[in-house]
């Protein structure tokens, strides 16, 4: 990923890393993007410390809790984020990049099934991918904001441990909070 800028300096990381998913698929990712996954970063730094393998290119980092489809989405989201090692853009470039990212984000969310959101959040949590977690948590919150209690239970797989009369009493007392809710 190269930026057009006045003084092009060699990007310090054209190095790539390989990530292996739970279904044994290999993903070659640029170090800059992979470092956003703090779990990967930790693993990589541990490897470096223990001086076991050569830098990046031959290490395959296993991610047994992440499925390939999910990792693909997270990687493509990570690529769209401003890179920490990139040369600072001027204000205009930053604005256009922001707009592009917004457009990409909207497109991404439109094509996403709600169930996939849970997988993405789980994976982003496991990978300690802060920006991804932030984004997908917000997307999920927006999605469930106006949904009914039954929908939320089903979505998260939560069992209702209230007695029927307790629930009934609560719904009566706070009837205003149950108005205008999306149909399931």
């Amino acid at each position, binding site marked *: 990923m190269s930026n057009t800028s006045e003084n092009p300096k060699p990007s310090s990381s054209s190095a790539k890393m390989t990530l292996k998913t739970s279904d044994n698929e290999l993903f070659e990712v640029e170090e800059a993007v992979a470092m956003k996954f703090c779990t990967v970063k930790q693993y990589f730094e541990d490897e470096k410390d223990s001086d076991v393998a050569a830098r990046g290119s031959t290490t395959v980092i296993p991610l047994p809790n992440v499925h390939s489809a999910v990792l693909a989405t997270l990687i493509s989201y990570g690529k769209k984020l401003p890179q920490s090692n990139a040369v600072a853009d001027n204000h205009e470039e930053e604005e256009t990049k922001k707009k592009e990212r917004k457009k990409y984000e909207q497109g991404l969310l439109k094509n996403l099934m709600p169930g996939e959101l849970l*997988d993405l959040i789980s994976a982003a949590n496991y990978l300690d991918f802060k920006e991804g977690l932030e984004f997908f948590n917000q997307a999920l919150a*927006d999605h469930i904001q106006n949904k009914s*209690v039954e929908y939320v*239970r089903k979505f998260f797989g939560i069992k209702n441990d209230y007695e029927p009369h307790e629930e009934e009493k609560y719904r009566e007392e706070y009837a205003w909070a149950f108005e205008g809710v999306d149909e399931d």
Partner: protein
Amino acid sequence: MSDYLPEEVVLEILHRLPVKSLIRFRCVSKSWNSLITTPAFINSHLTRSHSLLSNSNKLIVRHCLDKPYVEHYKLIDDSNDSFDQIQNIELPLTSRRIQHFRLIGSANGLFSLFEQERFILWNPSIRKFITLPKPCITVKAHGRLTCRPAFGFDPRTNDYKVVRIAFPSEEAKPPLIEAYSLNEDSWKLTSASFPLGIGFSDWHRPAASLGGAVHFAVYDKDNHSPLILSFDLGDEVFRLMSLPNCAFSWSNIQTSVIGGSLSLLFYDDRFVANKCCAIWVMKEYGVVDSWTKLLTVDFNKEIIGVLCLQKNGNILVEAKLPSDWELSSYDPKSQHVKSLGICGRPHYFHVDNFVENLVLLDKPNDAVSKRGACRKRKCRLTSNKEICQLQEAKHLLQEILQHASVYELQLDIIHQQQTIIHQQEAILLPLQEAILHDGRALQLQEALLYELETILQQQTEKIATLISQIEIMETAESKLVFLIQRLKGQAEVETMLQQKTEKMTSLKSQLEKMDTIKSKLVSLIQQFKGQAGEMFSGVGDQSSTQVQQRSSSAGQEM
């Protein structure tokens, strides 16, 4: 796909939900309920609310309508000039003794109201109010009082506090000061000493709450110079702040918060024709020289009070219309007042920045307490003759004094009895609830039993039908057996018949053979007869007898 999300992730998602969704999702499960109602969550959700862009343009307007006496709280979108109403929430309480509650102040979307010695905290975000316990400083205990209340938020302890500065009727005595803390849910007298020689310029309007302290507009009784008295809600210490020299010694000053800074509203009503209000802002807190004048609102006989600054630079004011008082928007450039269509009782308007807040969610629901009726004392005076009048008056006074002391004792007894009744009520209520609960449990069991009965009935019916079916099948079976036997018998008869027919055919064939042999013999006999005839003519009797013998023996042989 794993359906299980770790708790910290669920919390992250909950933090991003608006208050209405959170109240609804308390119902999802008991664990979600406990996540949402912890004080830590309530505090961190508020912090997030403050930072949300969607909240930074919201205002909450309190206005009071008469007959019926209802307080309305309107949520307003202040992001553009249209002043759109998002929501209207009514306070579900009416004052008993006065027409409307008096507002002490507001902080973080939480309002504090009172009437006489009854104090209320009201959170319109979750539509919940609580009644505070009785304060320490009461008319009963301390005699007649003139009280200056204030309400504020202390960010260091995430606590909301109501402060009361009560002046006894005797001028010389220093005021008593107490503060209620929401976290502790109790009133406490403070040892803070009110500075001497200071009087309040403003007794009624909300004192500005900023940075964990409430600020009063006061004046120095010696030189009448205006000052600001701050009371820190954390360390409960009074501090005086002086105002710049160009400040004016009007008696009508109000403290407020504008754009996050402490501000003063100087109401200038020296000239009836030309009333106005100067708004000053302290750009840097604590720095006297940073006081700057923001603008002057020209009342122009329409406006009676200044409320708040809008996002577009206009000022929200209380304006008088021909028939009513209304919230209006004042444009400082054109000095034009635009009506916003929200009417209400004058001096009972209040506008504040709105932020969604879950505070009070974890407090128990308020039970409306009953109060004893107050009695009116009546004094009687009779007069007959001049001298006797005085004596009788003296007697009567003595009697009255005696009655008064007895009356006080009786009051005490009545109060005690009231508390006993309250206690008994408190005991009865859970019992009642338990009975109701049991009753409901019984009903549930009855319903279950009924269901079981119907199920049993259905099953017995099924069994009956099955039995009848089995019977039908048995009769069918026996019929089949009978038929089979008959068929078997028939089969035997058939075989016998077959055998007989076979025998017959064989006999027939034998007969036929015999017939052919017979015919042959007959022909032979004829031949012999013929030959014998010829021989008779020739030979004579011997041969014919021989032939006759031969034919008879042939016949015998046959």
